[in-house]
């Protein structure tokens, strides 16, 4: 991100790695249409729940728990059995800038393969970032060694996508949930047992299930076990990597709601990853949309769902069904051409250009920087505009 030329009409000229501070100026920004021609018809806005409003206000200090600057994670592609030769790199995450305030939920959305999990794992330091900086609680953790990272791990926990592989099939629920506590070494004996029971209850499981094995539970229940494990050490930041994608549609809302309740109860900060904008709608304060390792649009919830500006966001939103059948019927579904290109060799300039219906020459030659077009609303596109979606 080296050029900050103001392509957007309403750019406030803020630097790209904004997030926290700028956003606060307008929790519900006025929505001046960037395309003078099209009248904007909006979906019924969601009522902002009280606790979300509270979260926004308390976060007004601009106090970022997590700040990610120009984060890159590249996976080397090697050839040769004995002596591995590097012949290229998968640029899974290629220059991310964002911050998450205390108590906030940032939704991270993008198609499969866009680099969401890699981002989450790099932040949780399960992966070594290739470049950039990850600051947690004011401390640079980008390249901490395993040993220096260890004491910080209790503060950053992950919930994984697949409830079938994220729990060790040979461990009982009790030993799964108590493992983080044993490693941290806070509790032992009866206190440990009591804490595990509390945790199971907290996530809506019966403490009687302590001695059962994961395969005795349904997907939703397993995900609750994973949540209990993540919460065991009283983390500050929870990275939920598509926590409901693998679940039955009927239990998804339950698990999302559980996470929401736990957040207000325990004052957690979430990075909530999903491949679908509808999943994070109710739980996110802000949403970032990723495409091929980069953020293409980031805004608060109202901005993202009611005034989306990036063509890719439009396409994602057009796939989300709306409750009103009449609207649903009239609505135009934007079908993207082809599959996302491989991050091994991403398209030049705007990575979305081969699939974008608005692409022009400049899109193939100049990379659009992520700029703040409206307060708290950043977009990386040469031709951002609102679009009538319904």
């Amino acid at each position, binding site marked *: 991100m080296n050029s900050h030329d103001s392509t957007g009409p309403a750019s406030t000229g803020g630097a790209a790695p904004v997030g926290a501070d700028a956003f606060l100026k307008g929790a519900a920004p006025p929505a001046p249409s960037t395309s003078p021609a099209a009248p904007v018809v909006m979906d019924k806005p969601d009522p902002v729940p009280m606790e979300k409003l509270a979260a926004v206000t308390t976060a007004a200090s601009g106090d970022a728990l997590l700040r990610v600057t120009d984060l890159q994670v590249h996976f080397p592609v090697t050839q040769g059995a004995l002596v591995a030769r590097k012949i290229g790199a998968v640029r899974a995450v290629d220059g991310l800038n964002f911050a998450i305030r205390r108590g906030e939920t940032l939704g991270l959305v993008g198609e499969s393969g866009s680099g969401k999990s890699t981002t989450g794992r790099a932040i949780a330091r399960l992966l070594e970032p290739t470049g950039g900086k990850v600051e947690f609680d004011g401390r640079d953790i980008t390249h901490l060694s*395993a040993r220096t990272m260890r004491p910080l791990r209790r503060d950053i926990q992950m919930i994984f996508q697949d409830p079938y592989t994220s729990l060790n099939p040979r461990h009982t629920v009790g030993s799964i949930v108590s493992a983080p506590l044993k490693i941290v070494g806070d509790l032992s004996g009866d206190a440990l047992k009591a804490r595990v029971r509390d945790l199971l209850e907290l996530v809506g499981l019966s403490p009687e299930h302590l001695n059962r094995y994961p395969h005795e539970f349904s997907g939703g229940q397993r995900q609750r076990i994973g949540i209990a494990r993540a919460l065991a050490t009283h983390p500050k930041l929870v990275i939920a990597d598509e926590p*409901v994608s693998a679940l039955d549609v009927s239990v998804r809302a*339950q698990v999302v*709601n559980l996470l929401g309740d736990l957040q207000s109860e325990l004052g957690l900060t979430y990075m909530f990853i999903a491949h679908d904008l*509808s999943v994070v709608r*109710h739980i996110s304060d802000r949403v970032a949309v990723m495409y091929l390792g980069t953020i293409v649009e980031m805004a608060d919830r109202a901005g993202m769902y009611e005034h989306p500006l990036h063509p890719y966001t439009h396409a994602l939103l057009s796939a989300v069904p709306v409750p009103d059948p009449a609207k649903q019927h009239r609505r135009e579904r934007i079908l993207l051409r082809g599959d996302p290109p491989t991050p091994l060799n991403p398209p030049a300039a705007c990575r979305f250009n081969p699939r974008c219906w608005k692409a022009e020459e400049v899109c193939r030659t100049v990379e659009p920087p992520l700029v703040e077009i409206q307060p708290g609303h950043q977009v990386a596109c040469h031709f951002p505009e609102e679009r009538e979606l319904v």
Partner: protein
Amino acid sequence: MAVPVQLEPTNLTPGPPAVKPVAGRSLWRIAWSRLRKDKVALASAAFVILVVLVAIFAPVLTSIVGVNPDEPNYGLLDPNTALPAGSFGGMSSHHPFGVEPLSGRDVFARVVYGARISLLVASLATLLSVVLGTVMGLISGYVGGWIGGLIARLMDLLLAFPLLLFAIAIVAVIPDSAFGLNGNTLRLFILVFIIGFFSWPYIGRIVRGQVLSLKEKDFVAAARGTGAGSIRIMMQELLPNLVAPILVYTTLLIPTNILFEAALSYLGVGVKPPTSSWGDMLSTAAGGLFRVDPTFMVVPGVAIFLTVLAFNLLGDALRDAFDPRGGG
């Protein structure tokens, strides 16, 4: 793109958590219930247990029958040929499997005592290779990097090693005493070491393969995410998942090692008389006596064949029983 989800706004209150776990069975119970229905497995297991009991209680057994493995009975031999007098290698009610040519020692007693040496060597060697193979397979698979690659290449190398040639070379240089051991104790030690050292890569490769796929599972990432170190992950997260395959391949490695011991005995690395082992009995017979006294070869041959077969059938049955794709 994946199927869009609609979160009904009316569904915002948490639903009653569904906490009734489905009745489930552990891996071991599933395996056991499958094994119980497998007649071949049960028969093989019974035979294996029988052979082990025979080996353990060899002195009791021989004294009940009233025979001795080392005592020569020249009176039972044809004075002209030194072959057992009577048909079928001199079988009689006193010597149910007949007697040895040349010495007249009781074949039943020698086979029963031979089971001790054969099983002892095979199981100690298997134990050595399971321990080595598990440790090396875990390191090679989990730690990876150049160390992992090096171990993997070493395993390939050992499996491709012209072992019997090596054994022949060893025969020439086995001293009478070394490491404070001598005689047959030293020879046993050498047998166990050679067999164990050359067969750990069988286990090592299985373990490495399993670890390579296990370590990509999220439960390993979750453990790392809570600060678990490599040793803790290998011992507590990975090892419990390796027990079933290790058990299966251990069961399959024991018979391989029984044959291995027989082959080494044939080449002269085995125990020296008067101590007997199946391999040693077989190789003595194969020296030419089988032409004039086939019983002498058939008895240890059948013992080896049945034992190896039983272990193999049991190992296959265990593999099927632990197969997650299997029915039942």
